[in-house]
């Protein structure tokens, strides 16, 4: 309430507001939830804390992680990108078609083509949303179908396999004992965190999600920022496409179906508001990890994948519910 502020305030600001348990929980609640989950799983399954298993979890989450980071940018601007799974599949197909073991295109060309394919489709999303004011839900729903169609057309419905060993390194290689996909995810995460935290661009992403009108009247080029977040999401779909093709040793036309749901779930579990303007990339990281650990834990416990979907869905709803009750109690 507005009353409380001016009653207690002194005219000169000094220091930070004191932290109580409630604000601690709201800042770190997701971290605590993650730790609790890990403790529970390490008790019920002796394999959970093994180094191999933990690396396996990280490898499994890295693709969703890359998609969820792009999704965080989009959702912070009050948008949504439903097309990430399809755009990823198309990028994977384009990259794989130049990464055959027999053909000699090297590693650079398939990487550039894969990232480029994602960037082009993401930019189309961005252009239509920013310039022609198509609602993001509608535009990216359309792109979800169009990109999938393009993938089938481009591949004639056939998977592309027998990829070069250079290319497979992107999904299966190790550097200093750490899987390459995990390193890619970590790199993207650090860049994204830095961008949102320290750059003017990051500041604008929050501002236009918080209040697009005020941002526009403050001289911010709202269209350009809006366009950029979809382009970022697109290029990250391209990266995820490279990673998934390399990890599974093939580009499949039906790859990544419903991946947008996990990416959105990670962002939402991480506390980013679908209404825009509020959220943190670190939350998304833990959202991704929580989903990964739940999948892994249920695998270890031998729970069927049918139940995994049920549990994951319930956790999304509970996470948002807790977030809501925190907001109304504040």
């Amino acid at each position: 309430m507005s009353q409380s502020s001016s009653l207690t305030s002194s005219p000169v600001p000094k220091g930070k507001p004191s932290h109580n348990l409630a604000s601690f929980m709201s800042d770190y609640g997701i971290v605590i939830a993650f730790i609790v989950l890990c403790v529970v799983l390490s008790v019920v399954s002796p394999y959970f804390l093994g180094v191999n298993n933990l690396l396996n979890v990280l490898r499994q989450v890295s693709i969703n992680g890359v998609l969820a980071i792009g999704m965080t940018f989009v959702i912070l601007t009050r948008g949504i990108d439903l097309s990430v799974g399809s755009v990823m599949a198309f990028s994977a197909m384009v990259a794989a078609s130049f990464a055959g073991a027999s053909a000699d295109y090297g590693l650079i060309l398939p990487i550039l083509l894969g990232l480029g394919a994602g960037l082009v489709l993401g930019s189309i999303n961005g252009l239509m949303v920013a310039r022609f004011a198509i609602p993001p839900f509608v535009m990216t729903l359309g792109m979800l179908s169009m990109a999938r169609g393009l993938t089938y057309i481009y591949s004639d419905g056939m998977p592309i396999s027998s990829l070069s060993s250079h290319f497979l390194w992107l999904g299966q290689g190790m550097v200093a004992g750490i899987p390459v996909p995990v390193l890619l995810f970590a790199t993207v995460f650090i860049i994204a965190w830095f961008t949102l935290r320290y750059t003017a661009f990051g500041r604008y992403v929050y501002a236009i999600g918080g209040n697009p009108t005020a941002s526009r009247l403050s001289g911010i080029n709202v269209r350009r920022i809006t366009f950029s977040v979809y382009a970022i999401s697109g290029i990250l779909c391209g990266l995820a496409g490279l990673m998934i093709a390399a990890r599974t040793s093939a580009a499949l036309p039906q790859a990544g179906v419903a991946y947008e749901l996990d990416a959105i779930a990670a962002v939402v579990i991480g506390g980013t508001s679908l209404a825009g303007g509020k959220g943190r990339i670190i939350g998304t990281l833990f959202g991704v990890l929580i989903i990964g650990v739940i999948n892994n834990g249920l695998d270890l416990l031998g729970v069927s994948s049918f139940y995994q979907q049920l549990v994951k869905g319930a956790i999304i709803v509970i996470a948002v519910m807790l977030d809501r009750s925190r907001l109304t109690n504040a």
Partner: protein
Amino acid sequence: MSSPYLLHAEGIRKSFSGVPALLDGHLALRPGTVHALCGGNGAGKSTLLNILMGIIERDAGTVRMKGHEVTFNSPHAALKAGIAMISQELEPVPEMSVAENIYLGREPRTRLGLIDHRAMQRQTCELLASLELDLAPDAKLGNLSIADMQMVEIARAISQDAHIIIMDEPTSAIGERETELLFSAIGRLKQRGAGIIYVSHRMNELYRIADDYTIMRDGTFIESGAMADIDRHRLITTVLGKELDEEYAKFNRPGDNTLLEVDGYGRGSAFQQVSLHLKCGEILGIFGLMGSGRSEFLDALFGAAPADHGEARLEGSPYHPRHPGDAMRAGFAYVTEDRKGSGLVMDASIKRNVTLASIADVAHAGLINESRENLATRPFIDRLHIKASSVDMPVRQMSGGNQQKVVLAKWLQTNPRILMLDEPTRGVDVGAKREIYAFMSEFAQDDRAILMTSSEIPEVLGMSDRVLVFRKGRISGELSGSELTQENLVRLSS
């Protein structure tokens, strides 16, 4: 047990997470009267009203209606008991008709349980006629003016048999003519024996319509009595708890050099043929009713919705803003009338709002330098007397007056020469208003100038060197010196 009061609240206390917002809320409302609830931003008025409406729960104290103690745990319960609140915050359903809005949730039914549209239409007609309101029952609510929407809310309150009606700043978004309509509706409500709790920062209104007053300060009841027994000066000093300087601290002096010339500006049907000139050191007032085109004109001058006719010159050179960025580079700043909607990012901190329009000044190669950002923000806290616990405080938690100062700080940070203020003191308490007036005089010096619109006549008269009056998208007259009177403003604007 009978009581002379419709509503009697005593000793109401409320804290939010340990911080007291209300220490001793007290209000005694007599039937057939308008009761002015006065206090600065943060005095605890809204907390008290929200408790009366059942929106928040009280920690202690009693509320009695006609002598019976009551406790409401939801606005619905309060409404059932006959208390209704009309404020800007209560959102109607814009896609539904007037009749559907009035009977929302309690639509008349046919024998089959379907909504009886004919009965609803008829009852609405009777209701609107009894209030002498000229509204069509099937008009879409979203197409009505804010004033008419408020009238619909009032009609709704009456149709629910509310005999206690809380009005929180009902005139802050409506013009002179609509205010008259509201006041005559209030008059009819009084005749029916209803009691009205009226909150407004506009002193003139209180003296016109209120019978009783209650003053609160810092969450505590200070005094109450009959409006006739307290003069304006004592009312203001009691609200503030201190003596005040002159209300309109005006000490700017228009110079000779022309800063801005506008010639034949127009856009669509919003405004046409607007010409004006603004001198250095001048505060040029623009007066007009809602929908007179005044805000649209400012939008055009700021490049937010560019003009499609006419031209403007800034110190003789052509000025054609296509985007707000163009206007900002030329030295314009624009404080809009709707600070929540188009001024502030409500969830962001003071600091982030202050630097929103000037990130480049605190950034290097796209990277924000946070210590420079703090350094840029802090001076405004002192200079504009912004009350805040820190520059990291979210603006949502601030009072209206302090939020408005944050908007001003945002624009000062861009170093403007022409400051455009649209309703600069809407929803701002008396103390903060004066500070804003003093700031305006201070700003309009040297080679700077202010273009201000307002629908508050005393403010326009008190602060402007000259006034242009807008009517139906055109300038209907220019007033200065001794022509600057309330009568002339009203005559030219309506």
